[in-house]
C-alpha cells in the first residue's frame, strides 16, 4: 500500500521534513533520514540540488550549492536511496526542479524513483499547465505528483488544481521564496480554510514554517506542516535536536 495513503489515513497532523541531499556529503543523507524518522516525522522530502533554484531562499540555495560542490547529482541520490537496507516506515518524497529530470529522462526518473521507494515528487517549476509532461510517467509507476497552491493562485485555477490533486496539496503560506519567517499573515489562515474545504486530499502548509507559533496559528486549518529551511539550517549547524520541539508541536495532539 502506498505510504502516502497510510499517512492520510492515520488521522494525525503530519510533519514533513525537508533535507537537502548531499549537504555535507551524500553519505550524511542516510543518517539524516534515519534521525528524522526516529524523531517522529511523518514523511521526508529529499531535495535535489540545482544550480538555479528560483523558488528557494538563501538557506536552501546555500545548502544546494554545498551539495553541488560535493558532486551530488540526481542519479547519485537515487542510487543512494536504492542502496538503503534499513527499514523506511514513512513516505519518501523527492523535490527537484524540472531541468535535472529532463536531462535524466522523465521515464527513467520515474522508474528509478519507484525502485528507490519514492512515494511522491514535487517539481516547483512545473505548473499545473505543463504537468502532462511528467504525469503519465508518474501514473505508470504509481508515484504521486504533488501540486503546489499559493496565495496568488486564482479561484478558477485552484479548483482545477485541486480536482486533480493527489497525495497531498502543498499549500504555500507566503508570497515569496522558501525560508524562515517571523510572522505569518492572517490571510494565510483564511486561505488554508478555503483550500481544505475544497481539497480531496490532505492540505500541508509549507514555506516559512519555523516556529511553534506558526503551528499553533494554523494547526486547526491544515492537515500537516512542511519544514525546510529550519531543518537544513539545523543540520548544517549541527543542532538538529533543536528541531525536536517543533516536530512534537505538530505531531502531538
Amino acid at each position, binding site marked *: 500500500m502506498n505510504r502516502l495513503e497510510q499517512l492520510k489515513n492515520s488521522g494525525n497532523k503530519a510533519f514533513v521534513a525537508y533535507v537537502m541531499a548531499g549537504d555535507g556529503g551524500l553519505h550524511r543523507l542516510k543518517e539524516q533520514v534515519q534521525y528524522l524518522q526516529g524523531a517522529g516525522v511523518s514523511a521526508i522530502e529529499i531535495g535535489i540540488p*540545482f*544550480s*538555479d*533554484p*528560483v*523558488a528557494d*531562499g538563501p538557506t536552501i*540555495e546555500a545548502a544546494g*550549492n554545498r551539495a*553541488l560542490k560535493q558532486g551530488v*547529482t*540526481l*542519479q547519485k541520490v537515487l542510487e543512494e536511496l536504492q542502496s538503503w537496507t534499513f527499514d523506511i516506515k514513512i513516505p519518501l518524497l523527492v523535490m527537484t*526542479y*524540472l*531541468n*535535472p*529530470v*529532463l*536531462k*535524466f529522462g*522523465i*521515464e527513467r526518473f520515474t522508474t528509478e524513483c519507484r525502485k528507490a521507494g519514492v512515494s511522491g515528487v514535487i517539481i*516547483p*517549476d*512545473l*505548473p*499545473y*499547465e*505543463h504537468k*502532462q*509532461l511528467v504525469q*503519465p*510517467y508518474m*501514473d*505508470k509507476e504509481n508515484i504521486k505528483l504533488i501540486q*503546489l*497552491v*499559493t*496565495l*496568488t*493562485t*486564482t479561484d478558477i*485555477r485552484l479548483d482545477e488544481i485541486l480536482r486533480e490533486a493527489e497525495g497531498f496539496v502543498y499549500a*504555500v503560506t507566503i*508570497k*515569496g*521564496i522558501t525560508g524562515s519567517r517571523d510572522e505569518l499573515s492572517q490571510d494565510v489562515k483564511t486561505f488554508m480554510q478555503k483550500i481544505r474545504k475544497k481539497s480531496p486530499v490532505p492540505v500541508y502548509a509549507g514555506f516559512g514554517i519555523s516556529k511553534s507559533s506558526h503551528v499553533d496559528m494554523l494547526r486547526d486549518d491544515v492537515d500537516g506542516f512542511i519544514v525546510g529551511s529550519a531543518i537544513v539550517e539545523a543540520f548544517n549547524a549541527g543542532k538538529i535536536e533543536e528541531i525536536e520541539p517543533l516536530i512534537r508541536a505538530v505531531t502531538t495532539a
Partner: protein
Amino acid sequence: MTKVKICGLKEVQHVQAASRADAIGFVFAPSKRQVTIEQAAELAKHVPVDADKIGVFVNPSLKEIEDTVAGVPLTMVQLHGDEPDELVKAIQVPVIQAFSIRTKEDVVKLKQSLADYVLVDAPGTDYRGGSGNVFDWSLLDGADIDPARLIVAGGLNPENVHAAIEQTTPYMVDVSSGVETDNRKDTVKIQEFIKSVKGDFVEQTMEKVGFFGKYGGQFVPETLMKAVKELEDAYNEAKDDPEFHKEYHHYLSEYVGREQPLTYAKRMTEAYGGPKIYLKREDLNHTGAHKVNNAIGQALLAMRMGKRKIVAETGAGQHGVATATICALFDLDCVIFMGEEDIKRQQLNVFRMKLLGARVESVTKGSATLKDAVNEALRYWVTNVEDTHYLIGSALGPHPFPTMVRDFQSVIGEETKRQILEKEGRLPDTILACIGGGSNAIGMFYPFIQDKEVELIGVEAAGQGVDTDKHAATLTKGTDGVLHGALMKLLQDDAGQVQEAHSISAGLDYPGIGPEHAYLADIGRVEYRSITDDEALAAVISMSRLEGIIPALESAHAIAEAEKQAKQMTADQILVICVSGRGDKDMATYAEKLEGLA
C-alpha cells in the same frame, strides 16, 4: 486552429514525420494497423511530449483499456464499437467516441454521447468506423453539437482537408489511409497533410500559444502563474489596441529618436571586397542600444496593468540603463539586479542607472553574472508579485515574454525592410545580428522570416573558443533544458546543472537562448555561428576605423562574422548588419584589451 491527429502509426519514421501533429493514434483493435502495447510504448518515445497519444479500440474491456493506458502510456482513448455508457464513464483519461454517419438520424446520436469528444466518420467496411471514404459533411449542418467536441475523420487527405475544416470547424481532424501509399504510411504525405492544416511553420508557432515548436512554455513557480497569466491577457489585449500602438510609437519617435537610419557602409564595403554592406543603427537610440525599444513597450504595459514598480536584471547594463531611463521618464519605482562581476566590468552603466534613480542590487551568488541576476530578479518578483512588473530584457523567460519582447523589437526589422526596399528596391541577401538571449536578432529577423530568399545569420559568443569551457555558444553547444521559465537550448552538464557561460561581452554571457531562436535553429530557417572574444575585438577596431562607428562588444560579434560572410558573397549582393548598440559602455574593456593601440 484545428488540431491534427495522425492515426494508425506502426513505424518510428512515420511517428517522426508526424512530429508537428497534435495527436498520434495507435490502433489496438484488430486491423492491418494493429500494434501491441509494447510496440506502441516504443513508438510513443518518439512522440513530442506535448502531443496526445490516443489508443483506438473496438469493444474493449475496461481492464484492457486500463492496461494499455498505463502501459504505453496513453493520454486519450478512442472507442469505435458499441461501448456502453458505463465503460465511457469509467475510463480515467479523456474519451473519444466514434460514430459512422449515414443519415441525419446518426447525427442525433452524437449529442447523446457521454464522451469528451465525438469522432464522425464514413460507415466502415473492414472494421467499425473507418472506410477511408469521405461522408457527406453537410449532414452535420444544424446538428446541435459543440465544434469543440467534434473530430472529423473519413477519407481526409491533404487536398480535401481544408474543405472539411471550413464546413465543420472541428476541434481536430483525424487521418489514416489519406496519408498512405499502397496501404503503408507515407512520410511525405503525413507532412503534407499537417502542413495543409497548419500552414507553414510561422503559422504553426502562432498556433500553439506560448510555444515555438517544442520550445517556450511557462515553467515558473506557482506563485508567479497569476502574474504571468495576467501579463499574457494584458499583452493580448494591448497588442490589438491601436491606442497602445500609437503611444508606443509616439515614444519611439519622440523620445528614442526613431526611425534609425540604415547606413550604407561604403568603406566597409570596399574593404571587404564583397557585397554592399548596410548597418542598422540601433546604436543611435537614446541610451545607446536596442534595449530601449522593449523597455518602453513593457513599461507602458505595466502601467496599463496598474503596476508602478519595476524589477529588472542586466548583464552589460544596457537593459538596466534603458529600464532605469524609462522608469525615470514615467516615474516608476525601479530595482535592478546585476552580477557583482558585471558591476565591476560596467561601472559607467552602474552609475548611469543610479543617476537615473534606480536601485542597483549587486548579486554575489553563482558566477555573479547575468544568469544569477535573473535568478535574483525572479525571486524578487515572486516576493513582490502583486505590485511589481518584471521587465525582462531579452526574448527569454516564461510566455508571453519571448513573444512580447520580439514584437517590441520587431520595429528594427520592419524599419530595415522598408528602408532597404527604398534604397535598393529589393530585400537583402543576408542579415546578421548578434545573439545573447537574442532580442535584437529576433527583432531584426522576425519581419523577414517568411522571405525565404533572405539568409538570416545569428552570431553567438564563442568566448575563448567553442572547444574550451569558456564560451557562450548556446546553440552550437547547448542541449534542451528548462531555465528561467522556458524550455530552450542550454549550456548544462550531464546532470542538468546549468553551466556558467563566458564571453568578453557582459551582454552575451548567458547560458540560454530565446526559445524562438532554438526553434528557428531546429527548422534551419536561421543559421547560427559563433565568434571568439579576439575576433570581436578585432572587429571593434576595424569598424571604428573604417566607418567612424565604435560598436558595442555584442554588436562586434555580428560585424566579425560579416567580414567572413562577405568573402563568400559577390558585389551584386546586399548584406545588412544589426549594430545593436554603441561601444561607450565597453570603453574600459577596450582600453584594457586594446592597450597597444594607444
